[in-house]
């Protein structure tokens, strides 16, 4: 059986849609439509007979609006985030296992100094030895890199290393992290406010707390091994249940 991140479609769809509905000053209109599209596709797939699918944002990234306040009071060069994700999933009874995938954030300066600022991505996998899958989800013949071991959720910053274990795993949580970084005060003010739309964020944040706690619990369990650091790179013995 594949290991990975076990999730239910409804909470992740609701989280993505809630962020899309609440991020009017933070994400472009096109980006919000892409998020709604991704949420709708997960909902449609969940109710369909499909047993495997690739959940993604599609061919275009979700773009944030530019921010100048990511270093504090403002005056920094304008920076915008480009966000996309791709998760390979298999159905498991009434939920899904995401066994391979990445959630990506690329940061770009805009205006006269336009260019790539940096980026990071959060990979998920079964943990342990690196495994690659073909487009049908079948394990490929092991390549030279196969000797590399990964934590089941790890983030890369620009390069292949470091592969830091990550508590942020799901697309809505990585997206919200990016928004929080770009607008440290403004996003917090937004989510703490009370409007019809931000009310939708309350169930999202409740589910998010649960998700992060469960990832932390899985990491803690792995680190309780006699060799904690290397144990973090072991293959999961059971899925990380976000549901």
């Amino acid at each position, binding site marked *: 059986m594949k290991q990975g991140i076990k999730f239910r479609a409804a909470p992740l769809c609701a989280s993505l849609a809630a962020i899309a509905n609440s991020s009017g000053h933070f994400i472009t*209109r096109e980006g919000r439509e892409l998020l709604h599209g991704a949420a709708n596709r997960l*909902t*449609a797939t*969940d109710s*369909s007979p499909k047993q495997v699918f690739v959940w993604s944002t599609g061919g275009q990234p979700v773009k944030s*609006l530019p921010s100048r306040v990511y270093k504090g009071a403002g005056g920094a060069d304008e920076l915008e985030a480009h966000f996309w994700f791709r998760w390979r999933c298999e159905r498991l009874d009434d939920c899904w296992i995401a066994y391979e995938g990445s959630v990506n954030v690329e940061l770009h300066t805009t205006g006269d100094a336009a260019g790539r600022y940096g980026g990071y991505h959060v990979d998920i996998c079964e943990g342990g030895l690196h495994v690659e899958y073909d487009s049908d989800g079948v394990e490929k013949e092991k390549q030279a890199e196969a000797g590399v071991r990964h934590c089941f959720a790890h983030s890369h910053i620009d390069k292949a290393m470091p592969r830091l274990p990550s508590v942020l795993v799901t697309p809505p949580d990585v997206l919200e992290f990016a928004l929080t970084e770009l607008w440290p005060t403004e996003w917090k003010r937004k989510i703490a406010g009370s409007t019809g739309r931000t009310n939708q964020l309350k169930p999202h944040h409740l589910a998010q707390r649960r998700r992060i706690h469960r990832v932390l619990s899985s990491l803690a369990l792995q680190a309780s091994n006699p060799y904690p650091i290397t144990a973090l790179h072991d293959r999961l013995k059971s899925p990380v249940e976000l549901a």
Partner: protein
Amino acid sequence: MPLRICLIDDKWTKAQTDVVCPEGAEIDVRGIDDETPEDFSNFDLVLLDQNLGIAPALKTVFDGSGVASQLRALARRDKISLPPLAILTSEPNLFEFEVPAVGPERPFGGSFIGREAHLAPTLDVEWLLLKPDFDDEAAVELTRQRIGDLAASYRSAVALAGADGVSMDESSRFLGLDAAQPWAAAAVNSIAASLPPISQEPGESGSPPRAPASLIRWLLHRALPYPGLFLSDLQLSSRLGVAVRDLDKLAAGATPWASALSAGRYAGPGSTLMARRWWTSAVDYAALELFEAAEDVGPTEALQKLAGVEVAPLGIDSPVVVSDESFVEIDIAPLEQAVQVRPPGWPIEAMLPWLAVKTADGHPWLRYLVDPADAREVGLA
């Protein structure tokens, strides 16, 4: 048992009414001075002429919507369930000064054709119909179909709901959902999300005053007219990235994908009362398959492969369906030229409409419906 239809009209005869009602229906025509039927709940549909003139005894104005109020009062007094009430008038512009149930507090303006759902709630009727020109056979046939649809839909709702209110399962069966379709499970979830008038109390006898008619009202005032449980041709076209004129060709393909899409065409109660509708779940299913196929070969080739027919792409980047000032869908435009609005009275369970930016900019009462963040992004004042 034949459909039973009552018409309250000061001018039309039974002969005229027979022409526009379904064949075999039992028709009861009453003038404003005639005694009212003993029990309106025995009918499947009550049609009300709008221009009923002045009742000399009371020196007041009687019109169809006024009679509707009287009938509601009768129903309250006698604790009966009324059938759907529909205004049947020869004057489509009669309500131009009414304030509609959806949109800014401004006069309705113009004809009710195509906007019946915006007006019917205000007049406390289920629907509005236009009296046809008797020389126009197509118009007569359309009116006959619509009157038959209304009456038969109510008959079906009564049979399903029984005397204990409406349940979720009865709502699904009322709409004629085909459980064999691959998108059927999603459709059941969508029906629940569309807030149908669930009122069933198991074991309770004696239905609430409006139980089966509530199902009709929900269908005609919320579920069918607004994009949510069902989508229009324009919405389908936008989701699949093809022109409206090619939809029939796509749905006629011999592939499983085309069959599933074709089965998504809504043909249940109320389907003759407005332009064609599709189950949103069927559209989502088709769009999902297209999305996945397009990842390998691109959207045009993916569509050809899935549908088995060749159609030209829509050629619009990030298409959205835009509406006119009255929130009637009119076209497909690129997202960058459109802005989403929140009209007062818009059903909460429905997708919000889009206006072309220049339409929204054209009037202050439309500009204020735009979210301030979006207004800033598209350059609205």
